[in-house]
Structures are given as structure tokens and as C-alpha cells.
């Protein structure tokens, strides 16, 4: 096991990793920007080092500052958390070259998993279902029509250089395809300096379902079932649950095996997540693999009883997985709500500022992961998540009422939060019935 780990992150995930290190008996070094100088979790680390000013580009995203801190603190490993440098293979390489273990997959695996086209190509070779499409850039509208006729309408036109939902257009027939194709090319050229666009079958009313895997460096792999992350607002997850309300034992096995096959094919180790779309008929399509711990990992921890962050550290330290696939079962239902300091009545604008009152819920079946407290000032530099509220109950119905009561006792004053939005979602019949798709929020909660 490592003797000292540096946490190259901030906020709740920094605290989460500090907790894991403490439970493993490993010393932990926190780094912080000037904007996080008063963050309470810094007191829990064995050492805390200021690495730069507030803007992430000069602190949490600055590889040389982080590695310099790691050298000064003489750590033997770095945990990157999520976001910032977590999926930057160059960072992993620099760690390697400094003889510091990067807690995550090898850089090559991250490259393989993280590049959408490469990942899709590998998945196809492994006979894992992917969304049918052009596979490569489509040069002109004639070839676009050929592809569309082959895969069938509706199709989605995506910019190769785009991301996060930008520059996507949907076509339902030949006429709209030609129009949208040309417009998309022009737009992509202007926005991303790269006019390449490609076509994919548009999966209608899909759910977003992902499979958590753990793989050690000796080639042993397990999957830990799924998380359903269908409740999203502009590609940002709001609520996650495990198991998925649409899951069957058979589908879980199929998707789990697909995820394991992909991870094996990508020579993947450590914790990772394969993302899939699942259509209305239960057909699933591999999208990509996230090579990091995810924000929503606690729901998997609750239903499996496995501490994913501790497992990440053990794996990076060279330990063999102590879990076999047969050891893993999903008990009960866990749901997570991301509480953001945002104003739901004002276009979900981030709402930094001082939290004057903070009373978190508790009691049976409630887990809370938060780095804030009364008096904490939410900095304006970083993302707006201030807490993750997780409930774990025997059934989905019980989990839903437990989440409602927990949200309703959650008091945050001084900044506006997404708590009222979560309460509204939990009251929505479609959500209660588990009958949602990724367009749910836009359909019912956009004003």
C-alpha cells in the first residue's frame, strides 16, 4: 500500500478521497487554490499545500504545480478525482515519469476509452452494440443520404470537433437531412474550426444507463451493476439511481458482459464506467467509457456495499481484486440527488456566495457527501455542486419517499439550490413510475 497520497482535486470528491485514505491508514496531502483556502476538508488532510490562485487553469488544472507539490510532499501516488486532470492521459504520463503512481488507468487505456471514435471502433470490433452511423466524417450530402438510407431515419448529425451537445442536428427525412447537413458543416467550421460532421442513428427516447467496472492490474475484472442517469439537464446529470427501473437480470448480464469485454479490450484497469443508451425496446448501444471515478459512484457503493474509492487505491497499489463477480449483488435501491448552488428560477445560473445556514438531512438510509457547512463561501471559480444526497432503501418506492423527506428537511440558506427542482421531479408521475427518457427535464421542467 502507498504511504502517502496527494489528492489533485477539491470539494466533495477531495473530501471523499481523504476519507478513503484515512480509512486505509494512508497519509493524505491536499492541494488547494487560494479560493479554497478555508475549505474545511483541508483540516482533515495530513498536509495541505496551496498551489496557486483561484482560476483552475492556474491551480487544479496546472500539471506542473500539482506535480511540484507532489514532489515537495514526497507522495507515492496521486488521486485525480473527477474532472480537472482525471482523464488527461498526459497528466498520467507525467506522473509516471516522476515515479508517482497515477490512481487510474494507464494513459493508453484512457486514450482508447476516452476518444469517442476510437472507443466506438474498438466496441464494434468486440461486437458490442454501438449506435449505427457513418463511423467516419461524411464529406458531402450525397454520401450523407447513402448513410441515412442504410441506418434509417431519424439520424443525428454531429460535429467531429464538437462535444457536450453543441452543433447537433436531427433529420427525419431526406429533405431535412440535406438542409441540416449543409448547415451543420457550416456551423461546425465556424464554431470548431473543423467542418467535419458525421452521422448516427438518432436513438429516440433513450435512457442513459452506465455500468460500473473494477479491474485490477493483473487482468481480473468485475462489474458492479448499473446506474440509471437518465434525469439530465443539458447533459448534466441531476439524479442517478441503481438499479435502473428498467433493468432485468438478463439485460444486466448482457450489458455487464459488454462493459467487461470493452474494458478487457482496452486493457483497462482501475475503476471505470461504460456508458450506454438504452432505447424503448430495451436495446442498448455502447457510447463511451469514462476512465475515472464518477460523481454518482455512491449509488453503486450503497447497493453493492463496495467502497469504490478504496478499491481504486488498492488496485493502483498493485493489489489483486478481492471481489469475484459472484460476490456482487445489488441490495435495495439507492438514489442520488446532486444539490447544486444554482437558481432554478433563473436559468440554473450558478449561485456562489456565503451559506448562512446549512442543516443536512440524516437518519436511516441517508448518506450525505458534502464539503460545505454553515459559514462556507461557495467560490465562483468551480462547479456549483455543494452536496450529494444519497438514500438507500429496500425498494424504489421506499427510496423515493425517503429522498423526499430528506430533501424536505435539507436547509440551505444564503445561496439558492436545486433542492426545489429535485422535489418537483420526485413528485412527477413519469419519474415515480420510472418512465422517463433523457429529454424528461427539457420536456417538463424548462420554462
Amino acid at each position, binding site marked *: 500500500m502507498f504511504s502517502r497520497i496527494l489528492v489533485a482535486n477539491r470539494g466533495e470528491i477531495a473530501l471523499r478521497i481523504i476519507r478513503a485514505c484515512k480509512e486505509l491508514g494512508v497519509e493524505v496531502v491536499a492541494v488547494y487554490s487560494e479560493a479554497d483556502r478555508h475549505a474545511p476538508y483541508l483540516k482533515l488532510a495530513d498536509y495541505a499545500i496551496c498551489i496557486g490562485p483561484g482560476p483552475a487553469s492556474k491551480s487544479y488544472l496546472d500539471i*506542473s504545480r500539482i506535480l511540484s507539490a507532489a514532489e515537495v510532499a514526497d507522495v507515492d501516488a496521486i488521486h485525480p478525482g473527477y474532472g480537472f486532470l482525471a482523464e488527461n492521459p498526459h497528466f498520467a504520463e507525467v506522473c509516471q515519469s516522476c515515479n508517482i503512481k497515477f490512481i487510474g488507468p494507464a494513459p493508453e487505456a484512457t486514450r482508447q476509452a476516452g476518444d469517442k471514435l476510437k472507443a466506438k471502433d474498438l466496441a464494434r470490433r468486440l461486437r458490442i452494440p454501438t449506435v449505427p452511423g457513418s463511423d467516419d466524417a461524411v464529406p458531402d450530402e450525397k454520401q450523407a443520404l447513402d448513410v441515412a438510407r442504410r441506418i434509417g431515419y431519424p439520424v443525428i448529425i454531429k460535429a467531429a470537433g464538437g462535444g457536450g451537445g453543441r452543433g447537433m442536428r436531427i433529420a427525419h427525412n431526406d429533405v431535412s437531412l440535406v438542409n441540416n447537413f449543409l448547415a451543420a458543416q457550416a456551423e461546425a467550421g465556424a464554431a470548431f474550426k473543423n467542418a467535419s460532421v458525421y452521422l448516427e442513428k438518432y436513438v429516440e427516447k433513450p435512457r442513459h444507463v452506465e455500468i460500473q467496472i473494477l479491474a485490477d492490474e493483473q487482468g481480473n475484472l468485475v462489474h458492479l451493476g448499473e446506474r440509471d442517469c437518465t434525469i439530465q439537464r443539458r447533459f448534466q446529470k441531476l439524479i442517478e439511481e441503481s438499479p435502473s427501473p428498467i433493468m432485468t437480470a438478463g439485460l444486466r448480464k448482457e450489458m455487464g458482459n459488454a462493459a467487461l469485454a470493452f474494458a478487457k479490450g482496452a486493457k483497462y484497469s482501475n475503476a471505470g464506467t461504460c456508458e450506454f443508451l438504452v432505447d424503448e425496446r430495451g436495446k442498448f448501444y455502447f457510447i463511451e467509457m469514462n476512465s475515472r471515478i464518477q460523481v454518482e459512484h455512491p449509488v453503486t457503493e450503497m447497493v453493492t456495499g463496495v467502497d469504490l474509492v478504496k478499491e481504486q487505491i488498492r488496485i493502483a497499489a498493485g493489489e489483486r481484486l478481492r471481489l469475484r463477480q459472484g460476490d456482487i449483488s445489488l441490495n435495495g435501491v439507492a438514489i442520488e440527488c446532486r444539490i447544486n448552488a444554482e437558481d432554478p428560477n433563473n436559468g440554473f445560473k450558478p449561485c456562489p456566495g456565503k451559506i448562512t445556514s446549512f442543516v443536512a438531512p440524516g437518519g436511516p438510509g441517508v448518506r450525505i457527501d458534502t464539503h460545505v457547512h454553515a459559514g462556507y463561501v461557495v467560490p465562483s471559480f468551480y462547479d456549483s455542486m455543494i452536496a450529494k444526497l444519497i438514500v438507500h432503501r429496500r425498494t424504489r418506492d421506499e427510496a423515493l419517499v425517503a429522498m423526499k423527506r430528506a430533501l424536505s428537511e435539507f436547509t440551505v440558506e444564503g445561496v439558492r439550490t436545486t433542492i426545489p427542482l429535485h422535489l418537483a421531479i420526485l413528485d412527477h408521475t413519469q419519474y415515480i413510475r420510472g418512465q422517463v427518457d433523457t429529454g424528461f427535464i427539457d420536456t417538463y421542467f424548462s420554462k
Partner: protein
Amino acid sequence: MDLNEIRKLIELMDANKLVEFEYEEEGRKIRLRRWEDRHAVAPSAGAASAPAAPVPVLSPPVAGGATADVPPPTRSADLVDFKSPLVGTFYRAPKPDAEPFVNVGDEVSAEKVLCIIEAMKVMNEIKAEMNGVVREILVKNGQAVEYGEPLFLIEKR
């Protein structure tokens, strides 16, 4: 006059034990005064204000020299902390046996190198960026320093 607004104000006063409220804006003026209760309770002794989160500021492997982030009270306005722009290891001289870049009492100019901060095997020369006199050297040679840590006390000219 908005009676609803006034009602809300009264509620606010009541909920918060306000006894007087006065407000004036653009020729509009409102003044409310409540009955003052006398059978009251003494304010509790608990200290007011927010919890101060003490920040651990330590470079672990090196026994940290006085970080001196509390300037002496008598210090003149021209004395400034010269802070580290980087995390790394502080060196006073270009080589182990060489003369230090600066000593206490030295005059420095903007381009004068004060020290080296080693970060990721790179030796970064740190310049004074001001004219002045070095009054104190706050960290030891070979010591780890963090971003923003005061390195020198310089009297500006």
C-alpha cells in the same frame, strides 16, 4: 402605501424581535415602532460570528520555518511580503556552494534574481520585480514552499 409590504415588514420585525424600523427613499419614508417588552431574557454568552476555519499550511517533509504570515505590528507600510509564485523548493543560491543571490540589507532592482524555486526538476529564477532593500529572509535554504508563501520581507523604494 402598500399595506401588504407593511404587513410583511411587521412580520419580519416580530419574527426577529425588532422594535424599531425606519426607511426613507426618494421622499418616501416609513417608520414602525413596536411595544418594548420588559420581561425579557439576557443575551446568551455564546460568541457571535462565524466559525474560523484554520488553514493547515505545511510543507510536510521539511520542518517548516516560521511562515510569518502575521507581520509585526510596528512594520512600516513600505515593507512588503514577497510571496512565492510557485510550489516547490526554495534555494538562496544558484549552486550548493555558491554565494546567495541576496542577503539581508542588499538593495534589489526589478530584474534582480532573489532565489530559485525548483518545481518539477526545473530551476525557476524568481526576480524581485520591484526596487527595494531585503529586510528579512523568511524561509530556509532547501525548504519546501507553497504558493503565496512569503519568502522575503522587502522595503520598497
